[in-house]
């Protein structure tokens, strides 16, 4: 009797063991994306992988975007991270620092990385060890959306490509002309997005265009950079736009450019393509970022993927990630989300981003290296909060230097309190 029972037990254990070794699913966490189709596309890609790799099928797990970061942090505390994980670019340095992510360089040959946009690679580069920790299907980019007939009527030069941007004088002259032409608030800076991540994302490029930055990317000190003369000049310019009545107030809502048409220029990212196109039709144009003082800068960064240190099959997960990053899938997912495809080959085939496509200028900016990622620093949560506060205060009329100095001090205090986020402080 006992022998029989032991035999059964052994058989059961053997079966469990077999299941673990041969059919273990790779857990893939995803935030769901903006549209239902994005999720379905990803599930389709994972199904295809599972069909080809029945020993290591991929299991799609959807986590709502609203509390995604909190769930990742909680899972990490509980040692329950999945094998493959997607995350917003702004959180990635914090994850890498906390040790959740595997460096990818050891799994792929150097050539593997060459087909990606520079901005995607730079986004995944972790400064302390110079390794890549993330790869994505798509990137974001910003430009100036225009109401083309309105600008033409006001006699404003319209840049044709990345190489002939507006200068600051031209841009401000355009705003003045549009105001005179009867546009209540010629420029929509999307202040209605509110004091959050979008302020660091959107106003960073304006500060960088003056030769300043949000934080020094070598020393990781904000004082002297975020409150430098160049940064003060940049944000004073923005404040003056608001003072002159050029900027759409937050309380006017989202559609001042494409709906009520009280604005003729809208500074925002590629995600507004559909509402803009549907409402403005052929009147819609998109031009490159102005060169306000020293350089043109586009914002970059989007959701991307990383292999977790918790995975027990890292080689296989890296293989899955490479499978997902095939050009055909890059093109597929980028098309669904309307974002910029992350590889040059996929971009060439994209209707929106190919050579004469309507948003080609955005990818050209990234190819030309005009994209500047948000600071890849584990202290980013404190950085973005401080910058958002400063931008909101400046728009509301606070002294620019004072607001930026306070933000810089808050960032530096956070980094200091965390002992420089070692190994960042060791440099």
């Amino acid at each position, binding site marked *: 009797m006992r022998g029989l029972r032991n035999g059964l037990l052994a058989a059961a254990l053997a079966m469990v063991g077999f299941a673990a070794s041969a059919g273990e699913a790779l857990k893939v966490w995803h935030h769901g994306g903006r549209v239902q189709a994005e999720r379905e596309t990803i599930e389709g890609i994972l199904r295809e992988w599972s069909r080809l790799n029945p020993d290591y099928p991929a299991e799609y797990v959807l986590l709502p975007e609203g509390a995604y970061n909190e769930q990742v942090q909680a899972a990490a505390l509980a040692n329950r991270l999945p094998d493959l994980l997607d995350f917003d670019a702004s959180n990635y340095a914090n994850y890498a620092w906390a040790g959740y992510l595997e460096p990818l360089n050891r799994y792929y040959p150097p050539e593997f990385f060459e087909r990606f946009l520079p901005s995607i690679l730079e986004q995944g580069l972790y400064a302390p060890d110079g390794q890549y920790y993330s790869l994505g299907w798509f990137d974001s980019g910003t430009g100036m959306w225009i109401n083309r007939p309105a600008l033409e009527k006001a006699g404003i030069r319209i840049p044709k490509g990345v190489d002939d941007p507006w200068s600051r004088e031209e841009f401000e002259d355009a705003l003045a002309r549009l105001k005179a032409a009867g546009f209540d608030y010629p420029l929509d800076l999307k202040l209605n997005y509110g*004091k959050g991540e979008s302020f660091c994302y959107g106003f960073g490029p304006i500060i960088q265009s003056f030769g300043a930055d949000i934080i020094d990317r070598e020393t990781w000190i904000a004082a002297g950079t975020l409150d430098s003369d160049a940064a003060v000049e940049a944000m004073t310019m923005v404040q003056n736009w608001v003072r002159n009545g050029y900027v759409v107030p937050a309380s006017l809502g989202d559609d001042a450019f494409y709906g009520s048409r009280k604005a003729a220029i809208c500074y925002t990212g590629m995600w507004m393509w559909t509402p803009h196109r549907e409402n403005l039709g052929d009147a819609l144009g998109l031009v490159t970022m102005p060169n306000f003082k020293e350089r043109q800068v586009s914002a970059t960064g989007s959701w991307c993927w990383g292999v977790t240190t918790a995975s027990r099959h890292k080689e296989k997960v890296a293989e899955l990630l490479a499978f997902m990053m095939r050009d055909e899938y890059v093109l597929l997912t980028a098309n669904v989300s309307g974002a910029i495809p992350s590889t040059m080959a996929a971009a060439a085939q994209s209707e929106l981003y190919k050579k004469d496509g309507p948003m080609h200028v955005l990818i050209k900016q990234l190819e030309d290296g005009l994209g500047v990622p948000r600071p890849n620093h584990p202290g980013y949560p404190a950085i973005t909060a401080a910058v958002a506060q400063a931008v909101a205060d400046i728009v509301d009329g606070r002294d620019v230097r004072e607001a930026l100095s306070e933000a810089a001090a808050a960032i530096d205090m*956070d980094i200091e309190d965390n002992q420089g*986020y070692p190994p960042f402080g060791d440099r």
Partner: protein
Amino acid sequence: MTIKRGGEGWSAWSIMAPALLLILVFIAAPFVLAIALSFTDQRLVPNPRLATRFVCLLNYERIVGDNGFLQAFKNTALFAVAVTPLQSGIALAMAMLVNARLPARNVLRGVYFLPTVVPMVVVSIAWACLFRLDGFFNQLLSFVTFGAAGPVDWLQNESTALPSIIALSAWQGFGFQMVIYLAGLQSINPELYEAARIEGAGRWGEFRHITMPGLRNTHIFVLVTTTIAAFKLFTQVHVLTQGGPRGSTNTVTRYLYEIGFSRGRVGQAAAVAVVFFIVVFAVSMAQRLLLKEDREGRS
């Protein structure tokens, strides 16, 4: 005798136990923890590379030295001082109105209570539309002044943002106090009014000498609960202004939220909570001492 007293004590404790346990676990313990955390640099996301350290009074020094905190504190106090009488006043007026022998007064009672049932987030979003540049309030303003007064950006203007939030909050919250006042009004002996009328008292005299004194205990309850609720102001501000413009609507709870969650500084947020608790506790104690409840009952 002693056995009986012991038995009583035991049964009293056993009746108190469930509530006491919950209070200990969910209120007392976190509070003690918060006091302990406020002396450390505890992070929201603990990291193996950085141990939490004891930082003595650093968190408290930083709060006291932060203009943002002082401003948030001032705004919260201003809000409490303004909204408490306003909200209670509306509530009392409405309670008297729906207490009168009006036709369909039950329907009116329900209608006036509606805003309180609607979640604050929904109310805030609805009012955001009313406050818009091309929204209801500006159209009303332009209509009343025959277009003379230009549109006001209610929530983006430092002088109008907090009053706008006060108006919204009073409107949303008065229903609750109205119901309490209604109960208070109905507990006043109607014979008192009859007697007053025979004595020749007018409506105002009735209100001053019967209604107000009769509502004394209700007043105290409403005042204390409304003040404490006012100190917790968060949702409206978070949805509508995020503390802006230039911090003019920031409140202590929102400040605490930003420090603790956006910036991940749990230790410092705990210090804010401790300071805030002491102040709110002091205020409600002062109210208790100044406004002695009438335990005897008048009617």
